[in-house]
């Protein structure tokens, strides 16, 4: 999976491309940890390029949400589509984490 991370004025913008699974969660966590350690901020994750997500990756996103929520920051998942959208809906994660499904 490719990960592009950019710090905008008030938030961290992350764009993902490829399958988000157990093989890519460590890199995702490491990059987010490093960025958030420098300065805590809300995150927007663009999942427009993600075709598949597995349980490990969902766990990583939930962990990120919990961490940001505890610090008064937000996590937003945008451009979610296909299997990831179905998974978030099925697991009812969309009831807790703001998710914008691709139009």
């Amino acid at each position, binding site marked *: 999976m490719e990960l592009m991370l950019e710090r905008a004025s008030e938030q961290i913008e992350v764009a993902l491309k490829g399958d988000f699974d*157990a093989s890519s969660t460590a890199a995702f966590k490491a990059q987010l940890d490093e960025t958030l350690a420098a300065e805590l901020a809300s995150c927007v994750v663009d999942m427009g390029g993600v075709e598949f997500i597995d*349980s490990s990756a969902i766990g990583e996103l939930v962990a990120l949400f919990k961490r940001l929520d505890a610090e008064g920051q937000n996590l937003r998942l945008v451009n979610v589509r296909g299997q990831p959208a179905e998974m978030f809906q099925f697991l009812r994660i969309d009831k807790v984490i703001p998710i914008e499904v691709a139009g």
Partner: protein
Amino acid sequence: MLLDAATVYLLFRLFALNEQWPARILVGGALLAVGLREAALWYAVTNTGQPAAEYAALFATTHAVVANLLFVIALDVLYATQRRFDVLTDAGRLTEELLREENRDLEAKIATSASALEIERAEAEVAVKKASALYADQRTQLELAAKLQTATMTMCEDTPPWSFASWFEPANQISGDMLRTELTEDGAARVFVGDAMGHSVSSAMLTMLVSAALEQIELDVSPAQALERMNAAMNSHNTGMYVTGQLLLMHPDGRVLLSNAGHPPAILLRADGTVEMLGEEGGFALGMFGVQLSSYSEAEVQLRAGDLLLLSTDGISELQLADGSRLGDAGLAAMLAPVAGAGNGPGVLIGLLREQLEARWRESADKDDIAALAVGWKVAEGVA
């Protein structure tokens, strides 16, 4: 004039010929001859007044001087050649010495490198042995962990009206998936299929935590309430991990209560050939969010004689097919549809599942753990 020039040159050579004693003697001799002839000439001119003899003597002396001069020049050339030869010989000797020195250095370096390599090889050998021992130890530990994990997954023998068949396949030695079947005293069956996030050692340990939590809950507690309690137990451990699962309480009269915590739906293959999906309304996975979000809905369904029920994990539904697509819940249901209504038992259902998917799963690069449990109700005796 010629005589004067020759004399000057000879004097110069006399002093220039360092350590060339034969040449110095010859040159010195020539000078002595010139001096003697000059003296003789002076004596003859002043005492006898014979100019002819003077010229003859001068001519002879000049010849002698020129001959000596040519000899000395020849010696000079020979000497210069000798010097060049000596220089070349010295250079050759020096080069040979340098080469010998370099050769000695090279041999020393090779010996040092060989020694270092030998040390490195010995160290690598020790490291490989250690790694092999560690790997063997870890394999042993994982085998033990797998046995322990299997021990926590209680599986019932076929007991009328229930018959069971399962397919449990860890992606590695231990699994993040779990199966559990229990029978109550009044003949009801409680069935749980779960899947901890990931498929690592921590996932396997989490399944044991879930098993322990489920074991604490009485068998007659409704599935929704049981999931709520399990969720509370999971959150109290604050592992940061979650487990999806589906819990069914199946009464001997065929009435089934089921509740789902973010798990793939169960597939009901009716004896009349129809296929239904159960538990599509998923609740939160266990441990995913806090206890404030721990309300689970419950569905009820009535089995009919010959019905088959399949509970499985996403290792099956998310299996990647040859064309790159995922099987999916609907794809799985469609694949199993031929079993419905054919009077088959759960063994046939699991057999079809393995026949269709096992080879694909084994060659899959990103395979997940697999757990599938087929339950038959009032299947005729003798049917697999």
